[in-house]
């Protein structure tokens, strides 16, 4: 075999994200020294990004079964049954590292990648959601990054013609060095069109379709598996460049072929390019693949086999087709003016065998390439200062601002305010199915020809995860559930993206371990299976890691789709009901972060059993059109929830909250108004429907209390604090528009 084996230096191994121990393991498993190409392939597939070698041992704890689950984790995306012959296919994925280096293309190709994961399953993408994190908007470089990431998400989604229907964006100085860009895609497939990423049938041809292969994105997978550093800018060649027009054609061609009897398997070329797509397809089918690299269409001349195999050029798919029927399949790609080439064939030996210029240039058994990585169990420990932070009593602190000022500052925070600046740059309507778009609690899509629909949401909870990663992750799941409930939906399943720092730090590994445990527990208690997910580690610029940031995407089913006011109060005189637990607390709250610059004390309280009971009551009240509005309480607590419902409807409200008892701490009212206890909602109801609402709450065992009435020009907590409706509206409207308008001038 040529070229000859090599003995790599320590720095060469580092470039491939391989340790010396891993290199020795490769020698042991192969019984020989790998050549440079083989070593590059091993480096890519053994990277954290591809192998999940650090997180995989933890992820087995996640429950992924249920009667509705058709495909769980391990394929391109999870699939749930919507009844009839319709399936829903979805996944969330991160593109954090590329977006930090080149925000437009990094974000755009993040969207492109998750779209391919969904249409690789034979599903038509019908919705995109994004979860974004940046540093403080006061910093010009952060505003730039934010604006460019939004531009990138919009650029790709708008051009492909898939609506971006929801998302969440959060600004915190802790993300200044490492922005987070998570994109979720939801697709629909007919049952008989579901495709799998598998190679079968010895002798069947392997096709590469779509874009030509270039030098872009080489080492993208390994790049995503190491810390960013000050030299990261120099890694820009590791960021791919997206072509959404090509993707749109590829999408249409692949969907035309979904259900075609000649198509055996379809897989997108994502991280580690041809190496991972071919290795994974062959591994799933218990076969091997032989590739003739000279058959791979290239964007530029002089590319080596190494570059061809590790290129992460976008908009490419690998197909395995029944022998003799290549021309039927290629005709579809021809019609869409897409290049398709037979680049290899399925072989019986379970290995990846590569040739170029008539010579074998690499030969790796799949059990080595795919399964030979060394599972890592880095030490983990809970740092002492984490425990110390939990000891603090936030309510005992002197509040920094009076109640009124605290309230208005929260409303003006870009984390609580109006997000129209973002979503008006996203086409959120194409497809003609968006019943409720971005800006509300959950997006709602109708399903054509059926009374029911989908509710979609994506949520994270890093402030509480800093204090307690387990609880924080559960809070993210709970918030997703609440958002679905506000749309009248029952959850079907969830996908997750775990964004963490450097797992070689004991604290980070502990955070990850705790977060996965929390996710598993919340998913089990709330009855929501985890059908897909992604782990993004090493979000750590020069040792300054991000807060643990679990992000949860949840899909639910709305039994009867109708147009509803969502969070907005819609009529004066309607009654305002508070559902869920009472109590005062401030730990891990947005107010605390704003006022103190850090979070302290116990994270928001969460009772998963109660969470589920209240969510069921809210879903029933909204689904049955008994509630006229529903809005869950999360960021900023009850007072912000109330103000949001008022501003959305252009109506004031007066509510009464229980007075403090004797000996209540100094910050008690702040804790009542701005505490972020989980499981709370504000509903408005016509006085004539009050009895029905109360009946539902009693039936479901949901705590409920009449707290006030809709109407007037003020938003007021009786006897405590009041703000003019117009002031609240102005604060919310300017929260993103203000800083971003200033940035443009």
């Amino acid at each position, binding site marked *: 075999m040529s070229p000859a084996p090599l003995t790599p230096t320590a720095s060469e191994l580092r470039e491939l994200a391989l340790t010396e121990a891993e290199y020795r393991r490769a020698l042991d498993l192969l019984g020989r020294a790998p050549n440079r190409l083989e070593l590059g392939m091993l480096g890519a597939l053994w990277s954290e990004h591809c192998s999940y070698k650090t997180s995989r041992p933890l992820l087995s704890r996640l429950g992924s079964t249920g009667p509705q689950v058709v495909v769980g984790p391990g394929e391109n995306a999870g699939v749930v049954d919507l009844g009839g012959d319709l399936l829903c296919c979805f996944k969330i994925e991160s593109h954090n590292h590329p977006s930090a280096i080149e925000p437009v293309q990094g974000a755009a190709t993040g969207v492109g990648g998750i779209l391919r994961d969904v249409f690789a399953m034979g599903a038509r993408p019908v919705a995109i959601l994004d979860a974004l994190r940046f540093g403080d908007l006061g910093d010009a470089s952060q505003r730039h990054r934010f604006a460019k990431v939004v*531009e990138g998400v*919009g*650029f790709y989604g*708008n*051009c*492909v*013609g898939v609506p971006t229907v929801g998302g969440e964006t959060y600004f915190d100085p802790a993300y200044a060095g490492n922005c987070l860009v998570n994109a979720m895609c939801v697709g629909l497939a007919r049952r008989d069109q579901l495709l799998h990423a598998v190679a079968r049938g010895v002798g069947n041809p392997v096709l590469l379709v779509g874009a030509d292969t270039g030098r872009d994105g080489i080492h993208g997978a390994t790049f995503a598996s190491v810390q960013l550093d000050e030299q990261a800018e120099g890694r820009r060649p590791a960021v791919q460049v997206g*072509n*959404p*027009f*090509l993707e*749109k*054609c590829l999408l249409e061609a692949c969907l035309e072929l979904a259900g075609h009897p000649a198509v055996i398997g379809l897989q997108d070329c994502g991280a580690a390019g041809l190496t991972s797509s071919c290795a994974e397809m062959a591994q799933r089918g218990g076969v091997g693949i032989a590739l003739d690299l000279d058959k791979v269409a290239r964007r530029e001349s002089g590319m080596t086999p190494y570059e061809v195999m590790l290129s992460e050029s976008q908009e490419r798919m690998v197909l395995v087709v029944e022998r003799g029927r290549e021309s039927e399949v290629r005709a579809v790609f021809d019609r*869409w*003016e897409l290049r398709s080439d037979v680049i290899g064939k399925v072989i019986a030996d379970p290995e990846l065998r590569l040739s170029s210029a008539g010579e074998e240039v690499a030969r790796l058994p799949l059990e080595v390439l795919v399964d030979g990585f060394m599972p890592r169990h880095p030490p983990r420990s809970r740092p002492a200062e984490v425990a110390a932070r939990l000891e603090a009593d936030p309510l005992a602190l002197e509040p920094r601002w009076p109640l009124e000022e605290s309230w208005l500052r929260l409303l003006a925070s870009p984390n609580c305010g109006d997000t129209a600046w973002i*979503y*008006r*740059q*996203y*086409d*959120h*309507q*194409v*497809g*003609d*199915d*968006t*019943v409720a778009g971005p800006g509300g609690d959950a997006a709602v899509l*109708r399903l*054509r020809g059926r009374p029911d629909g989908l509710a979609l949401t994506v949520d994270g909870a890093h402030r509480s995860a800093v204090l307690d990663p387990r609880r924080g992750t559960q809070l993210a799941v709970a918030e997703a559930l609440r958002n679905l409930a506000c749309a009248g939906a029952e959850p079907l399943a969830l996908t997750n993206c775990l964004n963490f720092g450097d797992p070689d730090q004991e604290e980070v590994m502990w955070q990850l371990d705790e977060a996965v445990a929390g996710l598993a527990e919340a998913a089990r208690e709330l009855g929501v299976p985890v059908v897909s997910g992604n782990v993004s580690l090493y979000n750590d610029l020069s040792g300054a890691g991000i807060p643990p940031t679990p992000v949860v995407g949840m899909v639910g089913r709305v039994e009867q*789709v*109708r*147009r509803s006011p969502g969070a907005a109060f819609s009529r004066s005189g309607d009654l305002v009901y508070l559902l869920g637990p009472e109590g005062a607390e401030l730990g891990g709250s947005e107010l605390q972060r704003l006022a103190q610059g850090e979070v302290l004390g116990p994270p928001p309280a969460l009772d998963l059993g109660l969470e589920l009971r209240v969510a069921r009551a809210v879903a029933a009240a909204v689904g049955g059109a008994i509630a006229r509005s529903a809005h869950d309480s999360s960021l900023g607590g009850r007072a912000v929830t109330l103000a949001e419902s008022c501003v959305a409807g252009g109506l004031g409200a007066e509510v009464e909250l229980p007075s403090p008892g004797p000996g209540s701490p100094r910050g008690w009212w702040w804790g009542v108004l701005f505490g972020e206890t989980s499981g709370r909602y504000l509903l408005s109801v016509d006085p004539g429907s009050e009895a029905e609402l109360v009946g539902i709450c009693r039936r479901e065992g949901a705590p409920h209390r009449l707290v006030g009435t809709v109407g007037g020009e003020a938003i007021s907590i009786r006897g405590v604090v009041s703000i003019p409706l117009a002031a609240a509206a102005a604060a919310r409207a300017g929260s993103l528009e203000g800083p971003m308008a200033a940035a443009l001038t």
Partner: protein
Amino acid sequence: MGLRCGIAVFPGTWSERDCAHAVELAGGEPVMLWHAERDLKGSDLVILPGGFAHGDYLRAGAIARFAPLMAAVEGHAAAGGPVLGICNGFQILCEAGLLPGALLRNSCLQFRCQSTHLRVETDASPFLSGLGVGRVLEIPISHGEGRYYAPPEQLAQLEAAGRVALRYCGPGGELGDAHNPNGSLHHIAGVLNAAGNVLGMMPHPERACEPLLGSADGLPLFQAALRQLARA
């Protein structure tokens, strides 16, 4: 069997299915027309839908105008057949010379997807007949390049000939920069050819055909054209 509404599909078109749905709601029969074929398949009406035909490379619509299908569309238009260009379809009609003017980058330099109000300026088109001049429609936009531009003399001629079909306005029909989402000259959202049978508009009427999706104000455009064809 309803009247046949041909819907052009270029590589990169994405609102062909939305348009087909709107046509069905209006009682027509949608039929997809492939860009590479010079065949309208017996269409009574032709729609050029939204999207990014040929990736909008070079300029929006600049490549699509050379598609074999466009020759057939030009023939259909010349014979007085109704043609509706929506968003990217409007851009293609301008590039093809079937409509005057051009669509430039939004003045805000960003993509905009939002609800807009449109004032109906004339009823001298199959798509607008019977809607009522002065009527305000709520129809969303979704574009990055929708700023209508024509040289001053051409603009004056268009205005004098009553060929401005739709203008961006406020909910009460009032005109003003605050209601103009992209900086279009004279707040123009849609224009007609001289005969009135070709309408180009940036907003998406096919997205506003059902109250469930927020507005049904786009449906009358499809219905009006089909009604007139049925009478002919």
